[in-house]
């Protein structure tokens, strides 16, 4: 059981650590690349979105590499 707990908490820790780094990138630069509406959005909104970006980074990271459609 301890092994399962260790694996689970390690995965959780890594997930949130990557999410935190991605969140920092989102605040500094990535927000406008993910969503063009962020260009006209006040900077403080990015800080509000920060926890959600940490939680959902696997869904958002893909948007960075998708070709832009007009």
């Amino acid at each position: 059981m301890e092994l399962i707990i260790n694996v689970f908490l390690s995965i959780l820790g890594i997930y949130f650590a990557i999410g935190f780094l991605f969140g920092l990138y989102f605040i500094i630069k990535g927000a406008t690349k993910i969503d063009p509406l962020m260009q006209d959005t006040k900077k403080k909104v990015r800080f509000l979105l920060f926890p959600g970006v940490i939680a959902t980074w696997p869904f958002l990271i893909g948007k960075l590499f998708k070709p832009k459609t007009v």
Partner: protein
Amino acid sequence: MGLDYQLVLWNKHKKTYDKIIVFSMLLYVILFAIVTLAFNSETSAETLIIRAFGSLAIIMLHIILIIGPLARLNTNFLPILYNRRHLGVSMFIAALIHGGFSIFQFHALGDTNPVYSIFTSNMDYGSLTNFPFQVLGFLALLILFVMASTSHDFFLGNLSAKVWKRLHMMVYFAYALIIAHVFLGAFQQETSLFTIGILIIGFIAVASLHLITAFKERKIDTTKANEKEGWLEVCDISEIEEDRAKIFTVENERVAVFKYDGKLSAIHNVCKHQGGPLGEGKIIDGCITCPWHGYQYLPNNGQSPPPFTEKVATYELKLDGKTVYINPKAFDEGTEVKPCKY
């Protein structure tokens, strides 16, 4: 609705709603403290906070879970549904205070990582009466965190409505974890009859209201309509309230038939914002207004008023005497359809 993102989408009604939420939460915590101290004056501040915010979060979660079906059964509950998102975030804050203080009091004062301690301080996972119930609360809190932190239109737009909806449907899993958390905890700790009572009554209310709504909606979806020359009979015009709609299923799609200003218009029932039931909303300022978050559409073309760009499909209606008929073939989203006058 917006062309950029706002920190919080507030209007006069939502501000009033939020003030009521904050006032009610504070009132509950104060009353809880007074009653607890009156019965047990030796209760520590940490225990008081843990119990007050824990029970508050459970009550709020029940309200959140029942207002959806309640609003479907009775439109008088729609104003509570209108700002459910803020209620959800407030509930998460209450749960976070409960969880944060619990972790601090029971797991943060040793030399073990507090999160690791939650999972390993009691390893009796095979036991029902001694199960480490705090693990269940922690997992529920994680789910509530994901939901609260993604309660912004940015995530709805960028995760896609489908993914967003799936993430937020996890509230039922969190609810199950919370029920198990409280009941298993009751075997091991001094849990009040008040909390257990709320949970039992709440579970019965949540389950029964969801079942009643499901049966009602199934009836809408399975009702066979009379057909007349390719048109389907919806209802008698008197069955639709002024500025409201009747929901009707056409070729497995729900359609909202609205009655307003001596006219009838029909649009697809699903709001483009978050899948809200447009037919449960009403006409405000000439626009069909979604009961969930106030997104608006013009009844004659299913388009959001400029500069907004959301569009839903429209349908053609006709009247034969006082009976409303609908052409089951949907027009493309945003297509102008002349309203049917009566």
